[in-house]
C-alpha cells in the first residue's frame, strides 16, 4: 500500500511524509516528490548551468542522487530545501568536472513564461546573459535568493554555507550584474557569457567591465 493511496481522512501528503515513505520502500512516494518539485528545480538547473542540455543532465543527476541518498535526509530542513541543495550540488559538480558545454544565450522559448510579452522576455534574456557571466557560486546564490525567493537562511542551507556568505555572494553578484548591465548593452550581456570558463569567484568584475565601472579620475564627488 502506498502513502498516496486515497484516504478521505488524510489531506495531501506532506513532502516529509513522502520522503519517509520513500525511505520505507514506498515506490510511488518518490515519483510524487519528483512531480511536485521538478519544475522549480528545472529553473534552478537551467539558470545555474546556462545551457539547457547540461541543465537537463544535472537535474537528472540530482533526482537520482536524491533517490539514493534520501536516507541521509534528517528533516533538519524542508524537503524542498534539501532538493534545492541536491540540485545545486549536481550542477556545481558538473561544472567542476568540466562536463559542461559552452554557455550559450538561452533562446527566447527557454525563458518565456506564460503570458509574457516580448519586452519582458527580452529583458529576461538580457538578465540571463549577464547572470551567466557571474562566478558560479554567486550565480547559485542569486538564483536561489533573488529568482527562487528562498530566504537567506534557506539558501544557506541549500548551499551548505553560512548566511553571511550567502549575503556576501548575493551582494557581490548583484554588483557585478549592475556593472555588466550598466551600459545597457544587451548584445554584450548576452554573448560575453559564452565563455565556458566561469570567472574566478573573487567577486571582481571582468577586466572590461571593471574598466567601464571605474570612476573617472577626478570624479571624487
Amino acid at each position, binding site marked *: 500500500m502506498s502513502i498516496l493511496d486515497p484516504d478521505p481522512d488524510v489531506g495531501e501528503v506532506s513532502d516529509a511524509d513522502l520522503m519517509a515513505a520513500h525511505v520505507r520502500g514506498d*515506490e510511488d512516494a*518518490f*515519483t510524487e516528490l*519528483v*512531480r*511536485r518539485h*521538478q*519544475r*522549480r528545480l*528545472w*529553473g534552478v538547473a537551467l*539558470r545555474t548551468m546556462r545551457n*539547457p*542540455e547540461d541543465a*537537463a*543532465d544535472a*537535474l*537528472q543527476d540530482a*533526482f*537520482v542522487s536524491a*533517490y*539514493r541518498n534520501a536516507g541521509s535526509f534528517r528533516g533538519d530542513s524542508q524537503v524542498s530545501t534539501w532538493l534545492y541543495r541536491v540540485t545545486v550540488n549536481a550542477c556545481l559538480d558538473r561544472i567542476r568536472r568540466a562536463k559542461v558545454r559552452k554557455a*550559450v544565450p538561452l*533562446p527566447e*522559448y*527557454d*525563458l*518565456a*513564461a*506564460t*503570458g*509574457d510579452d516580448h519586452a519582458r522576455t527580452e*529583458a*529576461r534574456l*538580457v*538578465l*540571463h546573459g549577464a547572470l551567466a557571466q557571474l562566478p558560479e557560486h554567486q550565480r547559485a546564490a*542569486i538564483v536561489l535568493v*533573488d*529568482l*527562487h*525567493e528562498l530566504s537567506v537562511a534557506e539558501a544557506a542551507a541549500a548551499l551548505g554555507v553560512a548566511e553571511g556568505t550567502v*549575503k*556576501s555572494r548575493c*551582494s*557581490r553578484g*548583484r*554588483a*557585478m*550584474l*549592475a*556593472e555588466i*548591465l*550598466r551600459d545597457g548593452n544587451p548584445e554584450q550581456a548576452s554573448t560575453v557569457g559564452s565563455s565556458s570558463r566561469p570567472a574566478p569567484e573573487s*567577486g571582481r568584475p571582468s577586466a572590461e567591465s571593471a574598466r567601464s*565601472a*571605474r*570612476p573617472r579620475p577626478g570624479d*571624487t*564627488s
Partner: protein
Amino acid sequence: MTRRQFGHPGLDQLDELLDADADVSVASLADVRAHVEQCEHCTRELAGLRRVRTMLHAARVELPMPDLLAERIQVAVQREAGHRVTGAVPVHEQLSFDDRPPVFDVPLPWATDPAADDPRAESASGQATSGGTVTQLRPRRRSPLVWLGAAAAAVLAIGVGGGVAMSQFSGGLTASAPDGAAAPAADSAAESAPYYAGSQAAGQSLDRSSGAAAEQSGLVELTPENLPVAARGLTAHSSGDEHSELRSSSPDCATRLGIDPATVAIRALWNGEPALVYVVPAGDNDNITVVDADCQAGQGGGFRYDAVASR
C-alpha cells in the same frame, strides 16, 4: 584602481543598502549612506543596483520544462529503483485485415488543463501541477538523435504507466515472437538483423543517458499506450537527411495502406517487432498507422494498427 581607492564605497556595500532588513544604523552602512547622499556617482550606481533587483524580481517566473525531460527523469528514477522497464505489452489478437475497428480520438497526455501551465497558479499552491507544458524541443546544438533517445525514454515510461486508450487493428504477431508474447524490445532488436543493421548503427550515436530503449536498440519502442507521444517525438526528430537511417521511403506500402505515397515511414519497434510508422497530419489530429516492416498487414500474420491522436 577600485571604487574604494577613489573614496567610493564598493558596489556590494551599496547593494547592502537596498536590503529591506539592512541595519543602516550600523556604522559601516551609515557611512555608506552618508556618502551616497552627497555623491552623484554613487547615486547613479545605486540606481543601477535597484534596476538589477527589479530585473531579478521580474524574472521570478517558472521556466517551462521540456516534456521529454520529465519522462527521462522518471525513467532514470525507475531504473535506479531497479525496475526493468521494457515497454512490452500483451500480444494483440489476430485480426483479419477487414476487421478494422473504429478509430477513436486519443487524449494526449500533454493536452491537460491550460491552468496547469500557469506558473502563478503553481507557485500559489506551492506545488507543481500535473500535466506538462507543451514545449517543443528546439532545433539542436546537440543532434536531434539525442532527443529521439529521450523520446524513447518517454515511450518506456509511459509504456509502463499505460493509461492511453487507443483503437487496435492488427494482425497477430508472427512466429518470430517467441511463444506469441511481445518480446522485450531490446532483445527483439538485437535479434532482428539485418533489418536493424543501419538502425543499430544509428543507435550508437544516441545519447547514452537518454533512455533504456535508445541504449539498447536505437529505435523507439511503440505500444498502443505510448504511440501518441512517441509518434510526436518521431516526427519531431526524425526529419532531415542525417536521420535517413530511421526513415524508410516506401511509397508502395503507403499506397497499399491508402496513405499519401509521399509520406515517409519511420522505422520503429511495435511491441518488439520491426515496424513502419506513418504519421499523417489531418487538421488538429495526426492519423497514425503502424504496420509490420514488410507491409504485409493483414496478409498472413502481418499487423496493422491505426489511431488518431489529437495534437
